């Protein structure tokens, strides 16, 4: 499972992988982000975004 951390909907800080609390950048060269995209393509949905103003 994943959760998005964001300042607001236009500014996402990172994506948290909840099993180990790793913070993943939205970067296509990052293999953890590639895995997140495959997880999304499989029909999964991240937990509601945590918004930090």
């Amino acid at each position, binding site marked *: 499972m994943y959760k998005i951390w964001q300042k607001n909907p236009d500014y996402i*800080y990172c994506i948290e992988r909840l099993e180990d609390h*790793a913070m993943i950048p939205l970067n296509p060269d990052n293999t953890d982000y590639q895995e997140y995209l495959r997880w999304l393509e499989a029909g999964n949905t991240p937990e509601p975004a945590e918004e930090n103003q």
Partner: protein
Amino acid sequence: MTLAVNIAQGGSNNVTMRNRIINGAMVLDQRNAGAAVTPTADTYTLDRWSVGMSQASKMTIQQSSTVPSGFSKSLSVTVASAYTPAASEWFGFFQKIEGFNSADLGFGAAGASTVTISFWVRSSITGSYGFSLSNSSQNRSYPVLYTVNSANTWEQKTITIPGDTSGTWVGATNGIGLLCIWSLGAGSSYLQTANAWGTGLGLGTTGQTNWITNAGATFYITGVQLEAGTTASPFEYRQYGTELVLCQRYFQKISGSINGGSYNQFANMAYENAATAWGVIALRATMRTQPTTAYNGTFTLSYGTQGTLINDANQTGGDLAVIGWTGGSGGAAGSSTYIRANNSTAVFISFSAEL
């Protein structure tokens, strides 16, 4: 003594940095510091080395001091639970070589360089084992068998592979330039013609040893070197600090317990607002790409505010990481603080940009 020197650039075998494998002597284990792990999925273990598996918890990996003469560490694999691979399953370990470090070999075009891989191996199970070279998409591979002749005995193996003149190879990028795979068991889907480039991912051939089927079997490897050319040169020893920096391009770990302290500081921070503070950590080597940041243990701000560590990936690049503390209260915008361990020696922050 005669020393051959070749300073040509394309597919060259320079006297230094000729080994394309990083941590080939298995001296670095930032993640586990020598502790044994029994992964449940493909996982990086010793620096730059990943275990690969189709079923969880069948293999235990550990940095070992069982070594051949001239080495201090090896990578050991032990069968944790014997298993017979199904047709589409495999077990083993691999290293991915970055395109920037292999592009000069010229794979995928006429004139691709021949490469030679050499390594020391010791196994409790004799027989033929699969090794394979593959590309990033795993649709080109060259499986080959090598033989472990005597049980529980260190033997050096040398394999020479002609460069692939076909297929798509990533070239000088930060992607996967070469994928080096050692098989410890593979089903029929992964068995292809040996000693030839083919399509798909071949990890071995019919008749290879499926080591993973043997309860308690052990397998050790060290002194791994991949170089251009048709012969194996002596293992290229690098200074520890040099090898560490090479590893830190892909993974680095900042520990708070280097002096055994329980409240070690990690970074200065400044409050953006009452609930959130931000700080910067200078990374020790330029990372391959924006890293994934992981926090282990209990952290707190200078005066004990509870909260959660996050990461601003937008401002974290290969050289600097921007970390944030959020969910606290009472901070004054613009005022300073710092992030520290909260009575724990097990606290660390890691950054991963593995291939």
